[in-house]
């Protein structure tokens, strides 16, 4: 019966002009073969399909494995220092590797203070830029400005460090630190003697580094506000600023929190620029215009000279830094994800 079908087709095919006549070698002449026969012949193809799926799944799982392996190995390496120092590893204020004393509170403090300074400076600037770009700017200028700000994200951190030390320090950081302490010196946080190589100096450079991150996200967030909300505010007689304040900002709040936290996460982990600008003094100082240290910076600066225990202690610093950034980042992702889910 199957062959009957085939015969018919050949005669029918012959009835069509020109190029459509089938050559005898045409694979269709064996058709229609049993599907199950073909299925069996495709066993190799099926195996290939399964192999490909597995390869993809394994590659994906690798991401999880690497992360888990990173945490385990580093924690394990730092364990002797964690156990010998105990809680004083994170509460101790003395870092004296030569005497085997490892208290990292000054670094934790420095990391937090420089990052907070960075966020305090970067957030208002980033929001201003993003609002300008989404709400005010004539369209011809949007592209170039956004492009220029994005360019900041491409600059490697070591280049920020170099530029910070040799250009920004004499040009702005040093005079600004001195000015701050001479005007507000009565406040503990601006107490003299002031130097540009300080929490403040590192914080300013960090701020420049995270402006592109925060502003790129904030732009997305503002753009997501429906135009209807804007029109509704205008229809109620709002000025542009009132429209922004009443319609755009409230809608954007969770997204902005997420953006800020991602910027904060980046600042916490930033190493080289801080290593060059924070002043490298392992003490805690209430005054932000005085030198300090940060966790990432102490790892980069002291690693080449550290002895075996010292390296374990530095790995321990890394583990604490990792824990802090991971918490901040996961929280930020949850904020951003919730926002996306709401949309």
């Amino acid at each position: 019966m199957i062959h009957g079908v085939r015969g018919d087709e050949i005669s029918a095919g012959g009835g069509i002009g020109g190029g459509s006549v089938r050559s005898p070698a045409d694979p269709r002449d064996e058709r229609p073969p049993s599907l199950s026969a073909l299925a069996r012949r495709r066993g190799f193809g099926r195996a290939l399909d399964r192999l490909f799926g597995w390869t993809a799944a394994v590659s994906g799982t690798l991401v999880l494995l690497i992360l888990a392996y990173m945490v385990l190995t580093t924690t394990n390496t730092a364990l002797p220092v964690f156990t010998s120092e105990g809680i004083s590893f994170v509460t101790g204020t003395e870092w004296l590797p030569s005497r085997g004393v490892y208290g990292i509170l000054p670094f934790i403090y420095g990391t937090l203070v420089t990052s907070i300074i960075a966020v305090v400076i970067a957030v208002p600037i980033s929001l201003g830029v993003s609002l300008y770009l989404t709400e005010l700017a004539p369209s011809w200028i949007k592209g170039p400005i956004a492009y220029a700000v994005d360019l900041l994200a491409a600059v490697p951190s070591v280049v920020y460090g170099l530029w910070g030390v040799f250009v920004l320090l004499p040009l702005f950081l040093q005079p600004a630190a001195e000015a701050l302490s001479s005007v507000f010196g009565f406040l503990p946080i601006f107490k003299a003697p002031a130097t540009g190589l300080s929490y403040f100096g590192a914080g300013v450079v960090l701020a420049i580094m995270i402006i592109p991150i925060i502003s790129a996200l904030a732009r997305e967030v503002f753009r997501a506000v429906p135009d209807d909300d804007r029109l509704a505010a205008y229809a109620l007689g709002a000025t542009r600023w009132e429209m922004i304040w009443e319609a755009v900002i409230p809608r954007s709040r969770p997204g902005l929190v997420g953006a800020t936290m991602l910027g904060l996460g980046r600042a916490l982990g930033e190493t080289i620029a801080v290593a060059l600008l924070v002043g490298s003094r392992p003490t805690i100082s209430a005054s932000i215009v005085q030198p300090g240290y940060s966790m990432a910076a102490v790892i980069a600066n002291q690693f080449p000279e550290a002895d075996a225990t010292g390296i374990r202690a530095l790995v321990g610093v890394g583990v604490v830094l990792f824990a802090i950034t991971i918490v901040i980042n996961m929280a930020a992702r949850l904020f951003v994800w919730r926002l996306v889910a709401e949309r």
Partner: protein
Amino acid sequence: MRAARGSGAVSGTRGSGAVSGGVLSERPSWRRLWSDRVATGVMFATVLIALLPVLLIFYYIFREGLAVTNWEFLTQAPPFSYRREGGGYVNGLIGTLMMVGMATAVSVPLGILAAVYLVEYGGRNLLASLIRFFSDVMTGVPSVFVGLFVYTAFVVPFGFGALMGAVALSIIMLPIVVRSTEEMLKLVPQEIKNASYALGAAKWQTVLRIVLPSALPGITTGVLLAVARAAGETAPLILTAFGSITITTALIGEPISALPLAIFDGARTPFAAGQARAWAGALELLAIVLVFTLLARVAASRSSISR
């Protein structure tokens, strides 16, 4: 887009004489107008503040860098003393190219495969959600921590070297490639996948011959940005490549330089000659990073599927 032009939405109705005076001709209060002006001014000022560092950075890198950049700089290793002038960062350039190259060769196929898993196989299942979430988390892991990990896991047994630096960079690149590729694969329309299946293509054939080629420009963008990021990384290399002032191409067992490491060194030396080389190195590194960033933009604009 916006129907009303700024505060004009209110004050513009002034003087519509037909309506009996009063209500409509009343201007918004002083305070309201004033705060609108101030807010506009502040926004404008923030743009200027944000642009200032861009100008300053590029101006100084070019000015200081070009002063030292010459053929010798591009082809020679630095002298043995920071005090001495001359020489260059070719050792760092070689190290950067080797390590970034190896890291790319490992992380790109792995990352793309992982993204294929997320989009074509995993969908919304638990494993896929975990991978997605932790790739996001991994992009936020401080790079110096990645360096510490590679140090404890690989440098301690095998010693410093290009391979160790490459491992660190590939761990940094991997999540970036995964997430950016995933976004691009999601944009490939189901219709053309169906067309492929309807022609009797198996899944792996559809993925390799239809899905990935369709998303190629977008994937390329993500890869190039990851490369740019890796090329600029310093901290993880201190702990894995360590740095060196001689030229080497050894993969393992010998410390190797990289452009960022050489710049970091130069930035910390008190000697003018060493600092000058750091500026030229910064220019060289910035040029490399910007080329990749620019190529990424070009690739993005080539994309035929992104809406």
